[in-house]
């Protein structure tokens, strides 16, 4: 039994999410092989070969895969994946985009966003915005799975010595093309892997006021997140959204500022170890999940917090 894991990488380096996905794959039992697919991804492949518990690294380096277009990736992965018992990727936007396409090409179901591996064919996954956990069993010969990375501890990035093999040729469906990208730049840690996250909601009132949260975040080495209300109101870009339809985070410390705690927001952060809520409405649902709650006007509390740190 071998498991094909599709590595997450960017600008020549392997992303931390890959280590969590390898960890989930190991729990399924079997040889774990990593596929690094992209353009100029040699350095990421070298890093992949060092990942603990990986037996082989496959590298598909071609311009056709340069922008991770689902139409092209899915042809390659469906082709390579036929001989594996499991095909696994992280439940980031890339995995969510191409993996269901792979599953359909192989005529199998996909199991999305698993949070636990019960056995080689049985998995747990959240449904209804995380308000219920379903245990599902797959009867397919190839299990196609995306993994919620925050639910699995990462394996070590060092210590492995996998062989590296090139995949020749490129699959180009020729029906889609990259036009442009607008990537948010930030010196702060990545939201999904940060140890501490400071998030703001509608209570922030405008984008300018997020600077207060950024000051606190910088002192704590934290990432800055937001609720849907803050994103919809245009305070901050959508890639900062935490929730059912945004990013799922599970940091050691989550500080929710001016966030009421709607079902859809809680879906994205209720796995955090310690939750702090700062809100002037003491009836806000966020206080029902917060370990530490402070009923106060955020415009007083946040500058005070900044000073106290």
């Amino acid at each position, binding site marked *: 039994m071998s498991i094909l894991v599709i590595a997450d990488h960017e600008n020549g380096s392997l992303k931390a999410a890959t280590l969590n996905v390898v960890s989930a794959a190991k729990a399924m039992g079997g040889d774990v092989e990593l596929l690094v697919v992209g353009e100029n991804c040699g350095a990421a492949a070298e890093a992949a070969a060092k990942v603990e518990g990986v037996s082989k690294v496959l590298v598909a380096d071609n311009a056709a895969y340069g922008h991770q277009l689902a139409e092209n990736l899915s042809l390659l992965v469906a082709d390579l994946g036929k001989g594996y018992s499991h095909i696994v990727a992280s439940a980031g936007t890339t995995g969510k985009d191409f993996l269901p396409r792979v599953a359909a090409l192989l005529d199998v179901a996909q199991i999305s966003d698993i949070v636990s591996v019960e056995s080689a064919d049985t998995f747990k996954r959240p449904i209804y915005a995380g308000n219920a956990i379903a245990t599902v069993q797959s009867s397919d010969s190839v299990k196609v799975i995306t993994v919620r990375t925050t639910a699995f501890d990462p394996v070590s990035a060092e210590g492995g010595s996998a062989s590296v093999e090139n995949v020749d040729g490129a699959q180009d*469906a020729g029906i889609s093309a990259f036009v442009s990208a607008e990537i948010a730049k930030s010196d702060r840690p990545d939201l999904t892997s940060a140890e*501490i996250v400071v998030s703001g909601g509608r209570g922030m009132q405008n984008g300018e006021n997020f600077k207060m949260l950024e000051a606190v975040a910088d002192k704590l080495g934290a990432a800055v997140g937001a609720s849907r209300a803050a994103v919809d109101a245009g305070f901050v870009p959508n890639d900062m959204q935490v929730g059912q339809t945004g990013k799922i985070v599970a940091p050691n410390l989550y500080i929710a500022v001016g966030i009421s705690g709607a079902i859809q927001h809680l879906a994205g952060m209720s796995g955090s170890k310690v939750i702090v809520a700062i809100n002037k409405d003491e009836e806000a649902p966020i206080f029902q999940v917060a370990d530490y709650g402070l009923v106060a006007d955020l415009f007083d509390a946040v500058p005070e917090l900044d000073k106290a740190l």
Partner: protein
Amino acid sequence: MKVLVAVKRVIDYNVKVRVKPDNTGVDLTNVKMAMNPFCEIAVEEAVRLKEKGVVSEIVVVSIGPKVAQEQVRTSLALGADRGILIETDEDVQALDVAKLLKAVVEKEQPNLVILGKQSIDSDNNQTGQMLAALTGMAQGTFASEVAVDGDKVNVTREIDGGLVTVALNLPAVVTTDLRLNEPRYASLPNIMKAKKKPLEMTSPADLGVELKPRLTTLKVEEPATRQAGIKVADVAELVDKLKNEAKVI
């Protein structure tokens, strides 16, 4: 050009769901049902494309029990031209939904298919991608902007790091993100008019699709509940607790 929009009947997004005591699923009896929010955005986008003169006909399709007609009628009231309900009482899994939609695509030959990016009940985020794969179409998932340009459609997609724009050959599949648009409300006259619009009833068997569920749900349980913690009096106490009790900063 013709647009096909797929809509799903789901539990209303404001409802706090309850897991059945026997752990077989979520209790849906006497619970408020509605159109999946992402599907509403899909209908709205199709209607806007029609208002711009890009689209000439909007066909809405849903799969589900007879009562799912309500969601098809809602779509018609919002501006769709005609509806199709593939009636079944089975719980249809994403791959089979994609196969049913493929059969509709073959019959209707739309130039564009718009779906929501995920349904808020199963949270799968699969159907659009699977339909695109089965029909060999290009896909623009998690769209926050859609611009038809001749025989191509430019789709701006929400990705983890920001936004990316792709150009897709038509026909193509687009799945909507929340930022794509703000759906309108149906007016009473439009709701009345929608009752006269055609709604075709069909079934998986009529479409020649055999449902083959691959996943068995063994159990549905409540997630581990978090207990409410304590209220602190001021910022100083909060910082002290975080440093000395929780030890997270």
